């Protein structure tokens, strides 16, 4: 028993598991208790949160444990360790039982639930085990089924809550059945045998671009060969073509195909959402509450009165745009270096790098931002709000400031990718701090700018010039970096 | 006794060992009754597969050059006078065979060849 627990906890005991776990608990707490809305809480009008909590917390824990186990299964030695399946399964289950016990204990102390605690406990264990194979070890289609199942459970928590109250024992048996199936699948001999050959996402804990790259490469390979009409001859000195090649190298030729495949896998979600949307309408259950919070957070400022005609700060707008901006910058293609050697001078590499940044700035501007607006309004329409645009100046302000600051992200990305020390450093904490710092900076500047200008034309002009200037500075430093640095 | 094996030669390693021990016995470097290192020891010092060493030992036992003693290292067998001489002759014959081929290829007649050989022998003794 001691050895079994050791086998499991030694692979769980790492900083990234702690951070991801803490992040998960935080997000789930937001969902369940409604911290997302400062003035009202979810729990006020969302009465099923007990059932959701009993399900979601263990499921989150299971997801994390399952991810660690699957990453472990992907190594080349795991399959051959004697008794590994038994030992890991023991550790996994002991953890699941403890987590479910703690969650049920908390529920019992905090709220007065009408449910039999044993049933909630079983639901927790089932959710935990389901979480373990939420990202199915062997099949992408199973993953989409599992995700659908979990969403269905959360969305229909109201009905399930009633059912669990009326038929405790069938619910109990059902949960145990799900647990048994999930555990037997996660720890099957065949899973251990086939997992080393399946591309497995690295746990983002010791965040390493190197690993992320390898993973993306493997994914690209799975798409098979592709005809690239434009890539048939010598690219010459046309740096736009080289930029395209960089994007091609970073993302592969299957971007669209991969995207469509993901959409195809997500198809069960569409009818699911439609059903729940109409089913729940007007009763303020989970889906409606979620949509309402989304729209509120995006387009309704709690600070409106203090800021008068300019419109107050919309915290969610700031966070979402700033995060989208920095992530776009961090994911932008840096390629045509590393493993393959291309006939590009250092200066030309700087050029390709800069233009790659322009390409994904365009994506943020033309695709991501309109999508954000559309989703927010869709959510609002679903809840029955009228569509309003009074937040638009604020939205644009944040967007422009994000564009001004985005070169910081590009710069970090270049440093991570090209500098020689990139392989050894643990970048997770730096990355999280960097993203937070970026968001705070964007937020702070937004507030300053809001107070500073009285004329919108003036503001637009100054911010546009700032965007250009920051790109110029970025370009200068990029050139000086590429001409002087040791490249990996 | 020093054995030198070349694993990259086309001659199987066990043959190289057999030949060298034969030679050492014929030349008297290995005296009758002397102990030969064990299979394990030889395998370790020469860096060759233990199976190869055992194979060489079996051949040397069959040729009545080594004696097996259960649980103990092999020893060199006492060679009778006539047989010892025969072994020596065999060794030399083997060494000379390529020379004969060379002589044929050079189109040297028997007398000249023998003369050269005789000269070399005498050169060496002087």
């Amino acid at each position: 028993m001691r050895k079994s627990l050791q086998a499991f906890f030694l692979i769980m005991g790492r900083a990234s598991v702690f951070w991801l776990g803490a992040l998960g608990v935080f997000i789930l707490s937001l969902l369940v208790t409604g911290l997302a809305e400062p003035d009202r809480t979810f729990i006020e009008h969302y009465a099923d949160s007990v059932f959701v909590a009993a399900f979601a917390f263990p499921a989150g824990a299971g997801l994390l444990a399952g991810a660690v186990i699957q990453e472990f299964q992907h190594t080349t030695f795991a399959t051959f360790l004697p008794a590994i399946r038994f030992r890991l399964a023991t550790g996994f289950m002991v953890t699941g039982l403890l987590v479910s016990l703690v969650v049920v204990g908390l529920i019992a102390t905090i709220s007065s639930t009408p449910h039999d605690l044993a049933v909630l406990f079983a639901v927790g264990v089932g959710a935990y085990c389901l979480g373990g194979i939420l990202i199915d070890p062997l099949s992408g289609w199973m993953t989409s089924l599992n995700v659908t199942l979990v969403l269905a459970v959360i969305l229909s928590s109201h009905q399930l809550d009633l059912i669990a109250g009326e038929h405790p024992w069938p619910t109990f048996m059902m949960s145990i059945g799900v647990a048994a199936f999930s555990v037997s699948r996660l720890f099957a001999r065949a899973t251990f045998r086939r997992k080393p050959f399946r591309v497995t996402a690295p746990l983002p804990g010791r965040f390493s671009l190197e690993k992320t790259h390898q993973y993306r490469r493997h994914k690209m390979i799975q798409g098979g060969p592709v005809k690239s009409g434009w890539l048939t001859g010598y690219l010459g000195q046309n740096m736009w073509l080289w930029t395209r090649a960089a994007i091609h190298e970073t993302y592969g030729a299957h971007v669209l195909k991969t995207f469509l495949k993901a959409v195809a896998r997500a198809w069960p979600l569409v009818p699911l959402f439609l059903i729940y949307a109409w089913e729940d309408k007007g009763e303020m259950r989970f889906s409606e509450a979620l949509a309402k919070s989304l729209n509120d957070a995006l387009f309704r400022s709690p600070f409106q009165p203090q800021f008068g005609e300019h419109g107050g700060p919309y915290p969610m707008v700031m966070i979402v745009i700033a995060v989208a901006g920095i992530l776009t910058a961090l994911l932008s293609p840096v390629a045509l270096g590393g493993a393959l050697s291309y006939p590009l001078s250092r200066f030309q590499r700087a050029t390709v790098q800069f233009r790659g940044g322009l390409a994904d700035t365009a994506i943020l501007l033309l695709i991501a931002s309109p999508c954000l607006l559309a989703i927010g309004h869709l959510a609002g329409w679903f809840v029955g709000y009228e569509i309003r645009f009074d937040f638009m100046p604020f939205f644009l302000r944040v967007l422009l400031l994000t564009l001004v600051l985005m070169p910081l992200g590009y710069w970090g990305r270049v440093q991570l990718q090209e500098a020689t020390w990139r392989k050894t450093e643990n970048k997770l904490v730096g990355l999280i701090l960097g993203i937070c710092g970026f968001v705070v900076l964007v937020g702070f500047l937004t507030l300053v700018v809001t107070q500073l200008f009285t004329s919108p034309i003036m503001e637009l002009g100054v911010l546009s010039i700032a965007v250009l200037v920051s790109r110029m500075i970025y370009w200068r430093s990029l050139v000086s970096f590429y001409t002087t640095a040791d490249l990996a | 006794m020093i054995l030198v094996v070349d694993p990259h030669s086309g001659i199987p390693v066990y043959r190289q060992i057999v030949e060298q021990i034969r030679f050492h016995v014929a030349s008297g470097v290995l005296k009758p009754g002397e102990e030969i290192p064990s299979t394990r020891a030889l395998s370790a010092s020469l860096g060759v597969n233990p199976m190869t060493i055992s194979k060489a030992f079996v051949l040397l036992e069959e040729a009545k050059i080594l004696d097996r003693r259960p649980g103990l290292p092999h020893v060199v067998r006492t060679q009778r006078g006539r047989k010892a001489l025969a072994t020596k002759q065999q060794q030399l014959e083997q060494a000379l065979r390529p020379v004969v081929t060379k002589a044929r290829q050079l189109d040297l007649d028997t007398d000249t060849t023998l003369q050269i050989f005789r000269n070399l022998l005498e050169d060496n003794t002087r």
Partner: protein
Amino acid sequence: MNPVLEANGLTKRFDRVTALENISFKVSGPTIVGLLGKNGCGKTTLIRQLMGLHLPSEGSVSTLGRPGAELGHDELASIGYVPQEIRLLDWMTVGQHIHYVANFYPRWDGEREQRLLDELEIDTEALVGTLSSGNLQKLAIVLAVCHHPQLLVLDEPVSDLDPIVRRKLLELLLELMRDDAATIVVSSHVLRDVEKVVDRVICLDRGRLVTDAALDELKELYAEWLVVSDNGRLPEEFSESFLIAQQGNGREARLLVKDASTELASFSSTHSVSVSVRPLNLEEIFPVLIGEQL
């Protein structure tokens, strides 16, 4: 005694590609088997079959007396495996990783572990993720041998090692065979290394088994004859059945022969030629085994 490894009519297909075709052999230990073949001939696939990672499409394969798919605790505790592409837990230090793996084996030998770490100069404080490919290979070897395996399988174990470490590895293999009576399978195309330690050679070509023989046997079987005519002219072409290949210019010829040592005397008298026999080493024999002579 049960063979350590046994394959019977083993066939493996991936979609339309047949990776292994009707392969049969038996290996009883202790022995060191060299698994040879060109890139893509099926060596790695065969090893994965032996280790139970892949399952046969047809036929059967057994390892330590059990089918690959059913290897259990007792068998796994007696198997060591160094794969070609090594993936370990990047975020552990080398020391932690060894400790982790050691936990699973009843016969883990701490002394051997320490000695190998010293000899191979492995830094136990380093993070696994930061190791170079050579150091990763060394670590994988340590992880695979410290539990006194009865069967050790190494897939291209020397590809990233420097000559010094390569020699140490070969010495280690010999030691495992002597001290643990282990059966060792090494796949490699560094034939000079293989030649030093193996006593048996299994050779694959395009998924089929083309040779399974003792190394010494192969060396005795194949030879090169350098033929010089005694009277000035050689026939255009020799037609003896033991010839595999020939090259000549009318005065001299190079012949590649198989199993012909007893034919030497009659050959030289028939054609009135002098023949000097040059033995062939593994590097020279290998192309012949897969039908790409001269």
